[in-house]
Structures are given as C-alpha cells and as structure tokens.
C-alpha cells in the first residue's frame, strides 16, 4: 500500500453493535472529511469486539481500522492510511471460520438492492423459478439442512408437508423472535443482509405454494425491522413477490417481549393478536396454523441458508458438516473471551476450536461454555473436544439451540448461573402447565436459598427430582427444557453446589451472601475514594470495611485506584458488633 494510493470508498459498520460502540459519531466525522469520496454504511462482519470498524478502499486494496474513536485525530489517521488502529482478522478466526451465510454481511450496504445483485443476490431465486416447485423442495431435502431455530427439524421435510397441502391460503412464517438472551445471529443477519433472508423466504414460498409471509420479529431489534421493511419495498418495486400466479404479501410484525412466543404454536397465537400460550401438537402448524390455515415456520438463519443451497445445489451443500448435521452454523460468541462476536463454522468444528482458537479465550481461565441459552446446558472445559452438531451436544445434556454460546470464566459461579436461568424461565413460563409454572418457581426458590447460603444437601436431590418431573409434565419446549441448565450444572459441577450447601462458601466469590469485602491496608494510599463513594457508609475513617453494613455492590472495588479492595471468603472480612 502506498501513500499515493487514492481512496475510492469508505465503509463504516453501523449495525447495532457498531452503533453501541459509537459508529454513528464516527460516521458523521468521516462524512465531514470525505469530500467526494463515497461513504457507505454497512452491517456487521462479526468482529463485534473491534467496533467501530471502518474500511478504507483504495486503488491499492482495502485497509481496515478498528476501535475507531470519534476524534479528529483518529479520522485523520485513517485518511492518511496511517498505522494506528489497523485491523487484521485474528489468525485463529481466519483459519477456522468458513463464511457462507455471512459472506456478504458487513461487506455490502444492507439496504442496497443493487449491491446485493452485484454480489450474486437473487440468483438462487432465479434458479428456483426455472425449476419445478417439488424439485426445489428436493434440493433442500438433499442438502440435509436442519432448522436453525433450535429444534433441528429437517427443513426439506417440513417444506414437503406444506407443499402437499391443497388449501386456499398457505402461510409462511419467519421466526425472528430470537428469544435466547445472549444470542444475536438472527439480528445480525437481518440487519446486515436482509435481502438474503428474504430471498430464502421467496424461494420457500415458491416451493411450497405459500400465499402470505409473516416475519415475527423481536421488538428489541428496531434496526433489523427497518432494514427488512426497506428491502421488502425494494422487492415489491421489482415485483419479485409475484409468484405462483399472485402477488405475495410480506408483513413484518413486532413481537412484544415474551420468550415463549418463539415456540411455534405460541407465536401463531401472538400473530393472531392473542396471549402467546402454546398449545398441544398435533395438529402441527403445517396442518392447522395461522387462523387454521396450513402454516410453516422457519427460523431466520434457516432461510439465510436457502439461497446458498439452491445456488450451489443440495449435494454440494451437504459436503460440509457431519453425518447428521450439514452445512455451516452461526454462533453468537460472548462472555469471558477476547474476541466476542458472530462466527460461522462448519458443523463438526469442536468447542475448543470455537472457544480458544476463534474466540481467543484464555485456556487457563475457562470453566465451561453455555450453549442453547435457557433451554440448554453448560459443557465443562474437559469436554471441549466435542464436535458441535445437533446430536453430540444433546448427548452431553446441552443442546445446540439457536447458536448462543456464552463462555464462562473460572471466576463465575455455576450455581449462580443456573439460578439466573431459572429466574428467567420461571418468569417466562406462560402458566398453562402446572409443572412448568409452579415447578420452575420452586426450583428457582431453592436455588435462591442455595446461593443465599441457606441451602441443604437435600435441596440438590429435590432439584434433580423436580427437574425431571417438569421435563415430563410440560406441554411445550419451554418447560421441557427449562430444568436443563440446573441438571447440567448438577451433572458437571456438583462439587460447587456442595461447597455452597455444606461449607456455605462460594469459591468463585460471586454469590453476595457468601462473600465478604476487605481492604488491604498495606497498599492503601488513603485517597478516601472508597469512603466517599460507598452508598451505605460501610468504610470507616481508618479504612476498615464493615461487612455488617456492606451490600457487596463492588463500588469501592471499582473506584479504588490501587486495586487494594477485594472480595474474600465469607468470615474473613471484618464485622462490627
């Protein structure tokens, strides 16, 4: 790259993660200095830890910058193609990732129809139109694609069910509810490549003879909704929605914040304007769904795979992956690691490769990884050579889920993590089934007792017993899987539970009721910041923390400039009379 290289285009990543890191302010400054150089807003390339990200395209190639600050100095550095904040994809991610579904994410403008076309967009749809609908279903069957929403049901088979129906109306629903708190694959896809997801839906509609499409999107994703709506307008303008002899309506509906509405029968109730309670299946939605019409539901990422399958053919697609799980999978990596973000890997990649090589997590500081969110389980680091696919994760008591993957460091408490998930599920239970409604509450209360230092050894047996009963006694996947986080931690981290109930200690020093806070006097510079900031006046004038008053809010630990205040084991701190 030479100084004489001319800048031809500038791309700023303005997906939600970028914006949260300050991309809009950067964008404004870049625009101010760009003069005649075109400045484009793009989605997320998956390297969320490096946001805000800016690509400078020059006659000599592209130079990327990360962690760009909204300052004149940082902007000038980029315009001079300076060396500061240069961004390179970490070697581990380059080596282990395979970008197919997110190939264009962050590389093209999400709301530009033309750029999507220039990069091979809508080729799959065109190819599908040249085939018979049942041939399209056949390709999807051959690809071995399984639903990415968590269930892993074979997509081609589901399409076949709807295609076989002879009805005046057939409904296609895109499940964009992304309820797993800690997952953002679907958000990224919709924000960054809305046309790709829509292309998948149009192909599905053609193949199954659907007459209407609903997209049920989580309300917390305003940018995704905006981009989808712009893309839908562009589709209408070009009449790409004219298929099967009629013009297809594509309607985006916002969810209203209920986890259970990700379950397909609950989702349909919610779309009908009702309370989102699941119902017994059968009848399956493909027999009776939205207003009793045959209805098929697929996840966002499932649709995102479809244009690729039709484009390259089902057989070619199936070359990647494992015996029972084909293709690539997106994972939202977050938690205790160096490179959190969105990753795409072939099915069968091991957890170790994802967490350590791609995520850059420190092997000495990882305890477990949580997959599948509140329905999933944790897998201890000893089992990280497990290949990631639907079947191997299930055999470990976890699930693949939709792709949320939270790395849990050594300094986190597994009992507290289990309590967190049960807090979530007991509140999200719709209340229809007794075991789910009351059982999850009892489990939650028991866990609260344990982290509160009031648990007994019998509580662990109760948790196991109740967990198994809830599994059996619940109608929908929420209840059937809600005990998983507890059962999995009991299986792999029983010793942590035992330390809580027998020794009344939390080795990770995470559970507030089981820790004290102490100030190490020898390093103290008597700056009094702890005294000034403590909300409950627990630090005395001679710098002793009274654990009777202390609420373990960590304020003093955060403000101390010498890092001389610590959480210590219960009983080691000072207590006033």
């Amino acid at each position, binding site marked *: 790259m030479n100084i004489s290289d001319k800048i031809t285009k500038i791309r700023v990543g303005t997906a*939600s*993660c970028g914006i949260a890191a300050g991309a809009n302010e950067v964008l404004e400054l870049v625009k101010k200095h760009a003069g005649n150089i075109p400045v484009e807003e793009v989605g997320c390339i998956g390297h969320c830890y490096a946001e805000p990200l800016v690509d400078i395209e020059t006659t000599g190639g592209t130079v990327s910058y990360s962690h760009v600050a909204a300052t004149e100095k940082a902007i000038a550095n980029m315009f001079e193609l300076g060396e500061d904040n240069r961004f390179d994809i970490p070697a581990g991610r380059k080596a282990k990732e395979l970008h197919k579904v997110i190939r264009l994410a962050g590389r093209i403008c999400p709301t530009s129809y033309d750029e999507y076309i220039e990069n091979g967009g809508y080729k799959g749809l065109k190819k599908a139109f040249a085939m018979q609908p049942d041939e399209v279903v056949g390709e999807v069957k051959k690809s071995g694609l399984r639903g990415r929403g968590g269930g892993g049901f074979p997509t081609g088979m589901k399409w076949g069910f709807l295609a076989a129906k002879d009805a005046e109306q057939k409904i296609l629903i895109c499940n964009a509810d992304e309820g797993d708190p800690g997952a*953002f694959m679907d958000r990224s896809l919709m924000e960054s490549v809305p046309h790709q997801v829509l292309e998948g839906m149009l192909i599905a509609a053609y193949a199954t003879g659907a007459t209407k499409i609903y997209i049920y999107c989580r309300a917390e994703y305003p940018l995704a909704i905006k981009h989808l709506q712009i893309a839908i307008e562009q589709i209408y303008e070009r009449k790409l929605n004219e298929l099967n002899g009629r013009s297809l309506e594509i309607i985006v509906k916002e969810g209203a914040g209920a986890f259970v509405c990700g379950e397909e029968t609950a989702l349909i109730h919610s779309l009908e304007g009702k309370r989102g309670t699941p119902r017994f299946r059968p009848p399956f939605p493909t027999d009776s769904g939205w207003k009793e019409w045959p209805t098929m539901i697929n996840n966002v990422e499932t649709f995102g795979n479809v244009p690729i399958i039709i484009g390259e053919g089902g057989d070619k697609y199936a070359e990647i992956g494992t015996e029972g799980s084909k293709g690539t999978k997106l994972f939202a990596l*977050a938690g205790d690691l160096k490179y959190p973000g*969105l990753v795409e890997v072939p099915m069968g990649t091991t957890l170790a490769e994802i967490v350590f090589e791609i995520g850059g997590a420190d092997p000495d500081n990882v305890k477990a990884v949580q997959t599948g969110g509140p329905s999933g389980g944790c897998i201890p680091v000893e089992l990280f050579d497990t290949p990631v696919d639907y079947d191997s994760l299930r055999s470990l008591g976890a699930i693949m889920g939709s792709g949320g993957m939270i790395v849990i*460091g050594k300094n986190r408490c597994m009992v507290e993590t289990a309590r967190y998930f049960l807090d979530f599920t007991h509140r999200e239970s719709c209340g229809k089934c007794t075991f789910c409604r009351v059982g999850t509450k009892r489990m939650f209360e028991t866990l609260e007792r344990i982290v509160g230092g009031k648990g007994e050894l019998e509580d662990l047996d109760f948790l196991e017993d109740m967990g198994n009963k809830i599994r059996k006694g619940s109608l929908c996947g929420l209840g059937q899987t809600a005990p998983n986080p507890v059962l999995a931690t009991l299986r792999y981290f029983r010793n942590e539970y035992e330390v809580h109930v027998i020794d009344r200690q939390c080795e990770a020093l995470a559970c507030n009721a089981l820790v004290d806070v102490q100030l190490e006097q020898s390093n103290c510079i008597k700056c009094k910041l702890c005294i000034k900031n403590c909300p409950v006046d627990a630090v005395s004038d001679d710098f002793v923390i009274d654990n009777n008053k202390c609420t373990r*809010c*960590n304020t003093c630990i*955060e403000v101390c400039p010498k890092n001389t205040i610590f959480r210590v084991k219960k009983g080691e701190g000072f207590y006033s009379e």
Partner: protein
Amino acid sequence: MQESYGYLNKIDKDPSNLIKGLQAVQATEGYVSDVSIIAVADYFSLPAVEVEGVLSFYAQFKRTKPGEYHICVCDGTACHIKGSTLILDWVSTELGITDGETDENGLFSLETVACLGCCSLAPVLSINGKVYGNLDRKGTVKILKEYRNK
C-alpha cells in the same frame, strides 16, 4: 372513539392487529393507560378485559408512565455473566429508583431487559434506545450525569 386516538385508524380493525394497536398506543404515549385500554377495546370491538388479558401477557407493555429518559439495563446471559447485577445496583443507587420505577421528577425510569442483541459489548444498557456498551462503574455514572445535565 376519542379523537386523540386517531392514529389507530391506520391499523386494520381485524382483532389479529390488537398487539399492533397496543404497540401504537405505547409508542405514542409511552405506556398504556386505563383510558387507552378502553379506546383500543372500542376500536377493535373487543371487551376491555380481553385487551387487558393480552396486554398483561407481554412484558413489553408498560402500565405506568415512564420517565423522560427510560433506562433499560440488560440482564441477558452475556451481560449477567459480565456483572449486570452490579450495573443495576449502581444505577439504582445513583438515581434512587429500583427496577420498574420512575423517579419523582419523571426524568428517569429504570427497567431490566433480557438481551439487547449487543452481547459482545456486555455489559450494556440503553437509554431511550441508544445502547452503551463495555460498562464499568465509572462509565455508567458518567452516562447518567450526562443525561441529568441535558
């Protein structure tokens, strides 16, 4: 139908749009009041109890007026692991309100939510939709001060 709810007219009267109607009310007024429930029930020709029944099912709908600045502290998995309970504690102490409350001046309201989709920047919070990531105590307090002095 009261005139002030004229914006509902853009929505088709099919009861399947009930949630959309309630969302329109909340987007305009910031919450759904008793008066609004009756107006929405009228509009869709549904009994008010049914509207209330649907509304109470969904966490999104607020029944009390939020503050001028509505703070959502994320307590999704990633943020929880990264210490969101502490963030909530600090915000609470700073503003003198707890989860679900609005302060006396109607300036701030506070709520916890499950995942804002920016997990890689955990822990995060949002104020009126603007997301702030990689928070520590200093950053959190600074953001709140900025809003208070606005």
